[in-house]
């Protein structure tokens, strides 16, 4: 799902001539589109539970390998019924947030007691991501959109190339590889809020141990029929005395 930079560089030489490339006065081709992300966020997790949706993400925005920003909110409410969480290029996420704010404002101005539901917002996002991908100028994000409207729970993902789907539990980034297996084992449709949060915290802990771009500072967003709440930042207790962490290089040939 996540494109490697290599794949994009290959397409560059093919696409350079006819998309997003301008021939400048010095005769060289200057590419005017996204090529790689700079300030990035790591995984976002999302699950459905009995009363609604829970999303979780850490608060780190990295600049390459530097953990540059440690209070970056990667979860954001959209309208009254949905919440969005994004990994990838954070400036693109901020741009998407602005677009969604304009969308919900326009919706509010109709004043017809009809509000955009999570499915509609997800459709809007899918179109934006896919159309940018077609221009070879993607918004470099993997986005989770969750919400509840009229009792119906909705949890969807959309990637930077416009691939989108819904599921009972979703994740982006490393979460796809490290969290989803755990979610597949432990997720149940009738989980209470406490059980849901505990499951998410378990996955977040695994991500903290194994994903080097994560930090131990998280937020959990809850969406129910009543509305959206995003928790204040919290940390999870870690245990570095686990047997698996002792002698980490014992079986690694050539490592030090």
């Amino acid at each position, binding site marked *: 799902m996540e494109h490697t930079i290599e794949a994009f560089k290959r397409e560059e030489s093919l696409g350079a001539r006819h998309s997003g490339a301008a021939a400048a006065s010095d005769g060289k081709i200057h590419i005017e589109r996204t090529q790689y992300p700079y300030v990035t966020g790591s995984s976002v997790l999302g699950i459905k539970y009995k009363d609604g949706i829970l999303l979780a993400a850490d608060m780190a925005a990295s600049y390459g390998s530097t953990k540059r920003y440690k209070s970056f909110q990667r979860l954001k409410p959209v309208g009254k019924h949905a919440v969005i969480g994004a990994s990838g290029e954070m400036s693109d996420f901020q741009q998407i947030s*602005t677009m969604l704010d*304009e969308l919900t*404002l326009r919706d*509010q*101005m109709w*004043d017809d007691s009809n509000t955009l539901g999570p499915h509609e917002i997800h459709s809007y996002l899918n179109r934006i991501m896919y159309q940018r991908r077609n221009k070879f100028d993607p918004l470099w994000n993997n986005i989770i959109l969750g919400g509840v409207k009229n009792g119906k729970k909705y949890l969807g993902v959309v990637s930077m190339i416009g691939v989108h789907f819904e599921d009972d539990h979703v994740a982006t980034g490393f979460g796809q590889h490290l969290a989803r297996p755990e979610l597949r084992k432990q997720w149940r449709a009738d989980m209470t809020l406490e059980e849901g949060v505990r499951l998410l915290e378990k996955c977040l802990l695994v991500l903290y141990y194994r994903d080097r771009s994560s930090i131990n500072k998280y937020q959990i967003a809850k969406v129910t029929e009543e509305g959206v709440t995003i928790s204040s930042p919290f940390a999870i207790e870690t245990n570095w005395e686990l047997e698996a962490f002792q002698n980490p290089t014992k079986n690694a040939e050539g490592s030090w």
Partner: protein
Amino acid sequence: MSSIGTGYDLSVTTFSPDGRVFQTEYASKAVDNSGTAIGVTCKDGVVLGIEKLTPSKMLVEGSNKRIHHVHEHAGMAVAGLAADGRQVVARARAEAKNYLSFYGEEIPTSHLCERVASYVHLCTLYWWLRPFGTGVILGGYDRDGPQLYMIEPSGVSYRYFGAAIGKGRQAAKTEIEKLKLSEMTCKEAVFAVAKIIYGVHDEAKDKAFELEMSWICDESNKEHQKVPANLLEEAKAAAKAAQEEDMDAD
């Protein structure tokens, strides 16, 4: 206040010998003949109310709204030509949106008023454009607190504690002046405004009307929204009861 402007009233780009622009004054007549619109600023917010005259029983209740959202924290009550009013509201929305995307924060009500007033005034400067036949009461709640402004077809705008335009404005203004606005909460003001509108409604000349009310207050989370249905019903009931009392007293 009526005067004959023969010869000097054909174009908005013509002054009369005594320095008046008759076309804008005639535009104000359109406002004066429409249903009453009232706005008041209270301790904790702004309340807008409209006497929406319903000329036909066939009109669906709640249609042809005359109070419009302009932005999250601002709303407009419109009097006069409804179609002209729609344009003014559309412009106000565009201005608020533009300010937000440019400066990254909600437009202060005073700025919004200035921008809308400039636009209304603009349409009085060219012979090929006619002035707006609408008066607008703009209510907003920003970091300087609740504010109320009124914009006339000439493009002039003032800030008010309480304002009224339309048919019953004289009577309404008298009633508003009796209120102690700085001590009232928005909830109390809703009852007061409903009472005033029921009071100024002319049963003989205009048969039916719908009461439309909105507020921006701490209770509504500083968001412009319609007054909640149950509160509105209470206010209507109290206003009707007060009317009957007055009639019995006579």
